[in-house]
């Protein structure tokens, strides 16, 4: 059962460096061909400070942690019961190679559907850059396949 007492839980923040080499690996893995995602000079020519992080990369920054599934454990959810239900990004400022981003995850909602067959946990992550500016936000719904609750 997902536990509604986790609503409002703030996971310890973690800070990650946005690395050019990792951005290029990510761009290659998604088949990106645009030069501003692959080449530093092209990125600058396109108006970026350095290689830009692609639109979904904030999710990868969240996972760039020695213990990336710690939040799932705090929630007492088994990883192989978890599905990724929704994912949303809100962009405030570009994130580029060389940035240092601090991520703060907060559990916003916990609820169940289908008589407890499915649990839902909504987590919002804020990404703040080295200047203290809010660069972006990521909101995900974690879906937990759980045993159907017994009728009381």
């Amino acid at each position, binding site marked *: 059962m997902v536990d509604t007492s986790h609503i409002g839980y703030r996971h310890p923040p973690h800070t990650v460096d946005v690395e050019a080499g*990792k951005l290029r*690996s*990510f761009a*290659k*893995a*998604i*088949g*990106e061909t*645009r030069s501003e995602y692959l080449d530093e000079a092209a990125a600058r020519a396109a*108006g970026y400070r350095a290689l*830009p992080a*692609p*639109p*979904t990369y904030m*999710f*990868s*920054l969240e*996972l*760039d942690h020695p213990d*990336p*599934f710690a939040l799932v454990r705090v929630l007492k959810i088994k*990883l*192989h019961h978890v*599905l*990724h*239900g*929704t*994912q*949303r*990004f*809100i*962009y405030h400022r*570009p994130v580029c190679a060389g940035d240092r981003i601090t991520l703060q995850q907060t559990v916003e909602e916990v609820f169940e559907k289908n008589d407890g067959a499915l649990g839902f946990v909504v987590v919002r992550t804020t990404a703040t850059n080295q200047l203290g500016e809010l660069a972006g936000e990521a*909101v995900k719904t974690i879906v937990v396949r759980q045993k159907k609750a017994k009728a009381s």
Partner: protein
Amino acid sequence: MNTAAVDNVASMPSASRPCPYREGDLLPAFKSAPISRAVIALFAGASNDHNPIHIDIDAARAAGLDDVFVQGMLPMAYLGRMLTDVFGQDALREFGVRFVNITYVHDALECIGRVETVEGIAGGWRVGVAVSAINPRGDLALSGDAVIELKS
């Protein structure tokens, strides 16, 4: 160019030219290659998603599945490429999806984007785009939306 849209935009004093997009416009079609196990593995490393259910068939079987399946964030990244190809990343304000059906090994995904709304804002336009990814069985893999802000 849609006359109503032009009239609408012309009434905005900040807009010096009509918005290049109008409701109903389709973005250039984008089809991924069939997603191989190698791509899944590369994406696992590059995206920091080391959940073994995507890369280790033993872990997938232990979870009651026949095989590994594709990380949902990979097709989301493909939708992101479709958006940045057309609008550029700087224009992206929000991007969200719902993961509707699991994407399997060897699926090629057809990415579709359609302009749903165009509104004048100070200095430009806000464009709402519906996005979806369709798997080879004709089912929805992901569906979502993006908010784009363009300067006039």
